[in-house]
């Protein structure tokens, strides 16, 4: 019982202290930029109504999901192809290094030239392109870093090309692929928000900036909090998926460290 209490204290102690500090420090605040936390919380349900969630939040998340999924698909396919062929890798490496180094937000003005920025297409392309490079490059590294013995064993067991790809190469590269996907997800969230800041738009990011421009400060704060919660939630979901799919790897690492 005491260990349970102790664990709960360790887990919740600091968050409670911080929220309480925010609550009391802002309680009597008359500063327009720092409204009392109670005001922000009161504004939350009236701001994020069902209408807003369906009209702003869901479309944003859907675009993020589609763009991220596209990037995972293309990144893994292209990354595996490049990783398996030394010639292709040598050919593509400097080009990939450049595209990886371009900060993804500058894609926004470029893509705005092609697709405009009011529809979904430009935003999805922005998110997908921004997410692509970390996944692609990590897949290349993961495929390249495979233990040669694994490939040779698979060959000597006469596994077909596809089986080798499916059961040896991809699982072997998957820890690196997940590393890339995790980086990509946080870039995707950034791009989800800023792709909505250009032109007239609806969406989570657009809504928050509209609150700020119209000086609806408590509403703006609710948007910041909501966006933060979404970031935390996405990271948590990612962790669950990763732990499930990489369970073998986590176990292996623990054994290696133990020995």
């Amino acid at each position, binding site marked *: 019982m005491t260990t349970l209490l102790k664990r709960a204290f360790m*887990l*919740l102690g600091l968050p409670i202290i911080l929220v309480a500090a925010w609550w009391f420090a802002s309680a009597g605040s008359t500063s327009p*930029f720092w409204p009392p936390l109670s005001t922000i919380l009161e504004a939350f349900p009236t701001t994020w109504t069902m209408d807003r969630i369906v009209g702003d939040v869901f479309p944003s998340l859907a675009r993020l999901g589609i763009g991220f999924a596209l990037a995972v698909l293309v990144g893994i396919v292209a990354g595996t192809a490049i990783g398996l062929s030394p010639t292709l890798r*040598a*050919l593509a490496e400097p080009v990939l290094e450049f595209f990886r180094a371009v*900060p993804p*937000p*500058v894609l926004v003005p470029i893509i705005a030239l092609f697709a405009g920025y009011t529809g979904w297409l430009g935003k999805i392309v922005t998110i997908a392109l921004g997410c692509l490079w970390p996944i692609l490059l990590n897949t290349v590294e993961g495929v390249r870093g495979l233990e040669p013995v694994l490939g040779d064993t698979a060959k000597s067991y006469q596994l077909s090309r596809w089986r080798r790809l499916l059961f040896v190469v991809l699982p072997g590269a998957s820890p690196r692929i997940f590393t890339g996907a995790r980086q990509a997800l946080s870039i995707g969230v950034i791009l989800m928000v800023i792709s909505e800041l250009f032109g007239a738009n609806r969406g989570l990011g657009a809504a928050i900036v509209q609150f700020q421009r119209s000086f609806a400060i408590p509403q703006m704060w609710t948007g910041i909090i909501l966006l933060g919660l979404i970031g935390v939630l996405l990271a948590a979901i990612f962790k669950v998926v990763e732990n499930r799919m990489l369970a073998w790897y986590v176990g292996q690492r623990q054994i290696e460290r133990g020995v």
Partner: protein
Amino acid sequence: MSSSPATLAPPASGGTRPRTRSRRARRSRDVWLGILGVLIVLVGAEILSRTGIVNPAFLPPVTEMYASLFQMLGEGWFWENLWLTVRGWAIGLAAAMALGIVVGFIIGSVPFLRAFTNSTIEFLRPIPSVALIPLVVLLFGTKPASAFLLVLYAAFWPVLVQVLYGVADVDPVARDTARSYQFGPLRIARSVIYPTALPYIMTAFRLAAAVALILEITAELVIGVPGLGKQIGIAQSSANVPETYALVIVVGLIGVAVNLMARFVERKALWWHSSVRGEHS
């Protein structure tokens, strides 16, 4: 008979020579392939644009982009904005590194603090820094301080987390040895914890340098903080397409330079790290 020494001699040294030659050949082949790859992309884009397969209004010929780029190099505003971007990046990164390392060392060396702050760090870390954009706009408008706060927030977490890993990685025997030699806490931090954590700090530097550049450019582009990002927005909205691309290329090259520098610094540190380990074992 007279030819036998000549035929016998080569295998003695030939065992190694062809191998090094082939490795060198492969490396130079890779370099040429890389250059070829870049050329394919450049020429491909030029052809796509010149033939009108892609509307030149959206994708101008690469030669025009570079013409615009070289023209910019002769103009004062370009260098001024380049300086503003690099300065904003460097200051934000330096502050995030300093703060992350100090906080990381303090939290990491005290087991209670480590356990007590864990849930909060895990919660705050994934909060996207762009969520703070409206707030910094209200507080600082388009002043560099807006970009600074965004860069600081975004780059701080990777540094903190890496330093925490690094401090946790310290060999308990080494720490106990230092303690039994009556090293003070500062000396333990300097001579035991710091060397273990250094490779992690270098990883943190590499991650934070890239993130800091992304957020610096984002702040310039989205908020309008002076710098190259703002110029990209201006070039795009005034329909100067070649200049837009030229600026994007410049920003990309800054990114390449940042990555190369970070990797260079990291490799130095890792070389030092492994060499020390090698000597002891």
